[in-house]
């Protein structure tokens, strides 16, 4: 090997070492940032005021039945989720989880009954259901792509506006919106068009919109799909916090996430409830393991 080649090699190696160092530094910096971010979030969450719920602030589903051209997607389902509960709804693909949410929020016709705060939800129009304090997110984020993040939140917040208010010029972000942007890490993107957000941020925006709606029954369809572990954690904490004075149902396939945050779990299979209980109960249920959890990885 010639001298020059050797020299070249040496130089290359040096360069690589430098790069490696740079990367390490970068990683360290990022770690510090994460820690900082966690702290910030924690303090913010602590500041979330406790709003008391009503005595009947719970969801009661009785005999919910959803049928599509003869195919029964949800079978005579009974389900009660109490105020302050963070309920996970899991089950194999096609079990009917999304369909339950669709039925409650008026997207698909269903029979039976679903009451929240004593009000029947079935048979009402989606926008009237929202007015009863029921909010949801969608499995595939559906935000208004041609409006900015801020405007999306304002719209979500403003559904009770009437008459004159509708025609007033929107003044900057309200306290509520400002706060949620902070919580959902959307502050920098406030004026970006929602359509240009990456997948994960859209999910955040969905959640943000749900929160500023001030809904008391929150239905989230795979909210953390497409989020990074750190973001999942943050989302989980936020939702946990929210669930203290609300009723929250989360549909998820991320079992880590479930284990970390679930208060209680309902397992659905072929439109019927297979099991219900705490996280441990579920994990120890052989049937659940067999048809859903499997060998468990991750």
């Amino acid at each position, binding site marked *: 090997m010639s001298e020059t080649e050797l020299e070249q090699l040496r130089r290359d190696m040096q360069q690589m070492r430098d790069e490696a160092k740079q990367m390490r530094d970068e990683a360290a910096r990022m770690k510090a940032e994460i820690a900082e971010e966690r702290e910030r979030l924690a303090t913010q969450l602590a500041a979330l005021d406790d709003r008391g719920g009503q005595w009947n602030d719970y969801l009661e589903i009785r005999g919910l039945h959803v049928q599509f051209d003869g195919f029964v997607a949800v079978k005579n389902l009974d389900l009660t989720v109490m105020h302050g509960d963070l309920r996970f709804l899991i089950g194999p693909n096609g079990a009917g989880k999304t369909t339950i949410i669709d039925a409650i*929020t*008026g*997207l698909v016709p269903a029979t039976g009954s679903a009451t929240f705060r004593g009000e029947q939800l079935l048979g009402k*129009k*989606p*926008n009237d259901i*929202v*007015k009863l304090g029921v*909010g*949801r997110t*969608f499995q595939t984020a*559906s*935000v*208004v*792509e*041609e*409006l900015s993040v801020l*405007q999306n939140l*304002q*719209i*979500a917040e*403003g*559904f*009770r*506006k009437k008459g004159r*208010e*509708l*025609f*007033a*010029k*929107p003044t900057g972000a309200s306290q509520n919106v400002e706060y949620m942007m902070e919580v959902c890490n959307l502050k920098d993107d406030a004026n*970006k068009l929602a359509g*240009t957000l990456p997948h994960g941020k859209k999910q955040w925006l969905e959640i943000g*919109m749900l929160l500023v*709606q001030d809904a008391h029954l929150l239905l989230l369809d795979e909210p953390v799909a497409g989020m990074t572990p750190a973001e999942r954690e943050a989302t989980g904490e936020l939702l946990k916090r929210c669930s203290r004075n609300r009723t929250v149902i989360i549909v998820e396939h991320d079992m880590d996430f479930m284990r970390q945050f679930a208060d209680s779990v309902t397992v659905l299979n072929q439109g019927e409830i297979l099991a219900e209980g705490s996280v441990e109960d579920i994990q120890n249920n052989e049937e659940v393991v067999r048809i859903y959890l499997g060998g468990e990885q991750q």
Partner: protein
Amino acid sequence: MNNLNLSELYAKHKVWFAVVIAVALIFLAPAVLSSYNLGLLAKYLCYAMVAVGIGLAWGQGGMLTLGQGLFFGLGAYVMAIHMKLSDIGAGQVPDFMAQYGIDQVPGFWELFRNPVMAVIGIVAVPGIIAAVLGLLVFGRGVRGAYFAILSQALVAAFAVLLIGQSKTTGGTNGLSDFKGFFGYDLTDPANKQMIYYICAFCVLVMMLLTYWIRHSFMGELVIGVRDQENRMKFLGYNPASIKVFVFSLAAMFAGVGGAMFVPVVGIISPSDIGVTPSILMLAGVVIGGRTTLLGPVVGTLIVRFAETQLSEAYPSAWTYIEGAMFILVIAFVPMGLGQFKGVWPWLKDRIGIGKSGVGAGAASAVPTSAKAVKA
């Protein structure tokens, strides 16, 4: 790079552009134009009123309405009937009815003999009919192309109906030969000028209204409904009512445009409101830029002016020009003149001279080495 400055200027001082237009319409035009040309301008302004509404309904609300002729016609016929009835004495019937041996003015027309009722009717009839149609159609989630086609069918049906009911509507002849306008003699040039002022005033008021709505919370809702109609339901809004509101407003604008068309032009007939005239009402909006406030008005004035000028010089060529206008603008400059801001940098980018300074605001954080991939 003069152009660039101009476009920046436009972007920054839109309001001043509007003011300049307003001043030109109100003070300049009557001073310099002959009575004949002022009449033409007044006619263009009538179409501009329709255009403002289309800009709102289509540009903002995404409702491509091919049937504004319906509302234009409703406003116009209410006005025309009023003018006919007030030309003649009480208890008499207008000439076109007499021709069919009718000796009693039907009740729904008699209503508009009263000037106050006529003015109310000009706004209310199109507004209410649009609201009813809107509730029927939007309430069931009909939108996009479906809506466009339905609106076209409706205006076609309306024209057939008008023609078929010639005993009460004058049929294909339409209504013409008016003597007075709310007691003012139509042949007096001073009154013609007054009518012009009314048109200019109406256009400006409509633009102000539109401006206000676009910049209010409602404006955001309208975009929300355009973009994610179903999602809006789950945010607690009834998309239908938002759409109905916008659609009715656009219909009212069209109605007023139609109503003013009658004293300005002196006739209203089904051929002014059929399928093709209705689509042509979109021409100015297309050219001027559907999403902007000024675009539809400016575009309409330009198109109608060009039509008068060119169709006189080259009658058959005008059809080609008109067709080409739709084709080229929509296919290549879909946002019309409103895209003016973007055209220059885009062009420069295409032919590769210089670096663009406009429109890169959003991109400034990212190195801009990429060429434009989407025109």
